[in-house]
């Protein structure tokens, strides 16, 4: 179970908690007026590849991309297409991803399946921050890319890339399981092009 423990005294005040959370949401909203640029260091043409390390790179990348473990992040309808992808017909376990980790500390992929609202945004940011490096994010569905049908609403974040950096975008409303598997394949190709020189030891 993903509990978020908050130790406090027995006579905590519910209104204080509500006010604190409201302030967190407003602060995050002010800080997120521009989208975070997508991580694209792998496109760098002039990276110098050290001959000694290419096979190490290949080994590491192969092991990372073949066993991505996603973390639970299921706000809305796309969650059910993700669950059916993980079920027995469109098996996601053939790609090494059958264990959907409840705890972000043991995961390295976040598939954001659903609309993000400003009230939920600090929690998503927190889960993302708790994931250890290296980590990747797939934005699944129209609501995750740009707000979808709800973009004009007063409480919807226009796309997850305001809050967290996104690697792969999968369009659709909801995307079919085949589309999700194609997107995961693209992410695996992206991972295979990483190099520990440019990205560091993470």
């Amino acid at each position, binding site marked *: 179970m993903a509990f978020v423990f908050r130790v406090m005294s*027995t006579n905590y005040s519910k209104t204080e908690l509500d006010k604190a959370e409201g302030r967190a949401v407003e602060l995050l909203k002010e800080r997120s007026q521009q989208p975070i640029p997508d991580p694209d260091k792998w496109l760098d043409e002039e990276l110098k590849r050290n001959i000694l390390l290419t096979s190490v790179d290949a080994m590491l990348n192969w092991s990372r991309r073949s066993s991505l473990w996603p973390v639970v992040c*299921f*706000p809305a*309808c796309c969650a059910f*297409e993700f669950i059916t992808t993980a*079920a027995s*017909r469109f098996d996601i376990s053939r790609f090494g991803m059958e264990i959907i980790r*409840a705890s972000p500390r043991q995961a390295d992929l976040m598939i954001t399946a659903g609309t993000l609202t400003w009230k939920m945004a600090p929690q998503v940011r927190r889960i993302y921050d708790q994931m250890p490096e290296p980590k990747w994010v797939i934005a699944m569905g129209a609501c995750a890319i740009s707000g979808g049908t709800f973009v004009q*609403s007063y409480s919807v974040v226009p796309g997850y890339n305001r809050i967290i950096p996104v690697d792969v975008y999968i369009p659709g409303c*909801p995307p079919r399981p085949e589309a999700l598997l194609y997107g995961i394949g693209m992410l695996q190709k992206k991972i295979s092009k990483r190099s520990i020189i440019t990205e560091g030891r993470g």
Partner: protein
Amino acid sequence: MAIKTEPFVVNIGPVHPSTHGVFRMRTTLDGEVVVDMEPVIGYLHRGIEKLAEGRTYTQNIPFTDRLDYLASMSNNLAYVLAVEKLAGIPVPERAEYLRVIMAELQRIASHLIGVGAFLNDCGAFMTPILYMIREREKILDLFEMVCGQRLTYNYMRIGGVSQDIPEEFLPALDKFVKVMPGYIDEYDQLLAENEILLARAKGVGILPRELAINISASGPVLRASGVKWDIRKADPYSVYERFQFDIPTGSAGDCYDRYRVRIEEMRQSVRIIKQAMEQLPQGEVRSEVPHLIHPPVGEAYGHIEAPKGELGFYLVSDNSIAPYRFHIRAPSLINLTALREMMIGWKVADAIVIFGSIDICMGEVDR
């Protein structure tokens, strides 16, 4: 020796591994026993009611898909019924029968996930839900044949349905209807007298009859508490008067009764689909309706028996192309009213089971 203890607040946070969505409970625990609980919702509030005031009546149909995303056909049907009541638009017979077939298939699909998620919470980690998703895929194949989509169908239109069924649909539906009761019997064989399910769900989370009526519960939650109230019989819409079916009710109002009511409702849905298939007439599927509808000034409340409860749409019109007020009576939100009473006194693990047995969908609670 008495150990000094004090209650401890644990946040069962918006992100949790059961499939019910972003629902948060601030529980006060004394050891393992729940002493107090406060639900916090609103993490999926997308402002659909406000957005709908800026779109025409037909453009609002995709919004209704995304409310209870596991039962999109039922949501569409409720909204379209409300608009037809407001504007006085007739519906051809073939369309009515097709609507009933789709709504009942959707009820089976939604209950499969509801029961599967409940069993997931009880501890049968993935086995029942994988079996039920296998059946649900058959239903989603049928829906894909009809309208091309697997989850958010946008199939009903004001004045009928959007397109007629292809030729392959009826033979495939026939095959499905023959096979489905066997699958429900398979689930019953594995689960109905299962010791673990009985120990975890029988007598847990009781909702008494008077409280259920007082909190305006509806759907399987109300029926499991002993109230025989189903909108398909009490206030029939579409062509439900012409079919014979029973309404399963429970007696104790605990989690096990809610589970049994859903399983029995699936059987009754298969019965209704068989009757509808035999009586399906020929004809057109959509009456002549202009693209932009100007309903007369007034208001209407249209409601149906959705899988989660009584889903109603309250529309106010001022003779323009968009609704003046679009309100959704969400069954999941109202069924949650008594969650606190149902949970106090039980342990944390039971709290999860009780919450799972109400079977809510956050898209509907938060709109």
